């Protein structure tokens, strides 16, 4: 096996390298790339090969397994990080049509705790709030608490400010926008103060959250596109931390391509019309 001088790095991956990479990436993140994504994958992977100073794909592939920083950079490069309101809206529908009815079937009232972690710049917790207010018929019977957490305080500040572009809000129905946001000028809208104030934004590392009694008894956890960045052990720890933070019978929603089946054996699989979710056993 000859090491390639960096100057002469190839412009594309071989068939075998592409296949090996896709297998590896799928195993770690659940994200699949078909043959039609060949250019997308080749370009980004070879960029990382170059930037990381690796001698070629094989060298880079070995590095990936050891270097969690590089792994995270790779995942960042391969995933579309754009966040917007009502992203993966089928999960919000699942929340309202299946999850909450099941959770509240035997309850006459009381608290419903929902956790959005990581909440990033706030699109997710606000989407949950909008959707619940619009579609959850029994909302007045319960004290719904939405906690939104992130390890990054800069994005939390943005989330608290509640200011968004029309692009981020494009999938929210106009009537909903009119109800919960106000024109802020410059093509932006701001979430109304009452709604901004009702969401608890906190800075926390999921792996440490269970140490704090505040993070207990969650009925629903939205943990989308976080676990894909972790190595195997950290992923299991994160799933166990979430488990500890949840009430028995609570539900967890992961990102579209993610599945508990590659992460943790702690949860029960539940099938609803809107999709598969995982539940902490009663």
């Amino acid at each position, binding site marked *: 096996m000859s090491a390639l001088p960096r100057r002469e790095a190839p412009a594309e991956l071989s068939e075998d390298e592409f296949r090996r990479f896709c*297998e590896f990436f799928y*195993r770690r993140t659940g994200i699949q790339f078909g043959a039609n994504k060949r250019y997308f994958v080749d370009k980004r992977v070879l960029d990382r090969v170059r930037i990381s100073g690796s001698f070629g794909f094989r060298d880079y592939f070995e590095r990936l397994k050891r270097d969690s920083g590089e792994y995270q950079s790779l995942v960042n490069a391969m995933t579309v990080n754009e966040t917007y309101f009502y992203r993966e809206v089928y999960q919000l529908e699942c929340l309202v049509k299946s999850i909450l009815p099941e959770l509240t079937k035997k309850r006459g009232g009381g608290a419903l705790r929902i956790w959005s972690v990581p909440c990033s710049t706030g699109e997710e917790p606000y989407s949950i709030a909008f959707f619940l207010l619009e579609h959850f018929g029994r909302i007045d019977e319960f004290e719904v608490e939405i906690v939104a957490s992130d390890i990054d305080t800069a994005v939390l500040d943005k989330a608290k400010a509640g200011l968004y572009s029309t692009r981020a809000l494009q999938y929210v129905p106009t009537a909903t926008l009119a109800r919960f946001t106000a024109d802020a000028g410059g093509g932006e809208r701001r979430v109304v103060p009452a709604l901004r104030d009702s969401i608890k934004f906190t800075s926390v590392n999921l792996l440490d959250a269970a140490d704090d009694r505040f993070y207990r008894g969650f009925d629903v956890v939205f943990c989308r596109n976080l676990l894909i960045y972790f190595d195997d052990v950290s992923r299991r720890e994160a799933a166990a931390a979430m488990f500890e933070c949840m009430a028995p019978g609570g539900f967890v929603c992961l990102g579209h391509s993610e*599945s*508990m*089946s*590659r*992460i*943790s*054996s702690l949860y029960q*699989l539940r*099938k609803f019309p809107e999709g*598969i979710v995982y539940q902490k056993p009663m």
Partner: protein
Amino acid sequence: MPNVLIIDDSATTRMFYRTTLESAGFCVDEAANGLEGLEKTMLAPFDLVIVDINMPKMDGLEFLCELRRREEVRGLPAIVISTMQRDQDRARAHAAGANAYVVKPIDPQALVAYGRLMTGMAA
């Protein structure tokens, strides 16, 4: 064409079963552990599941218990193909709901024969 789900943590084993069964006219899907397999059974109908015992996250015995517990899939025929050869391993698999138990490695002809038998395909 009958739909077969292969659940095994060895990619080579899955590939072997896939190529053998596809050549014999089966439609094949795969999963790398019992939990992923369970998901697949929830999302599409299968005529047969072939399952290993030793797998991460959810082993074959637990998969079978979960399968038999769920009304919509409890009748799905299941063949266990495992390296374990003691009588107690076989008994446990049957107790969990296996319809057949084969010790690895399985020959391609035997795999096809089992497949046809369990899915009612003409030989």
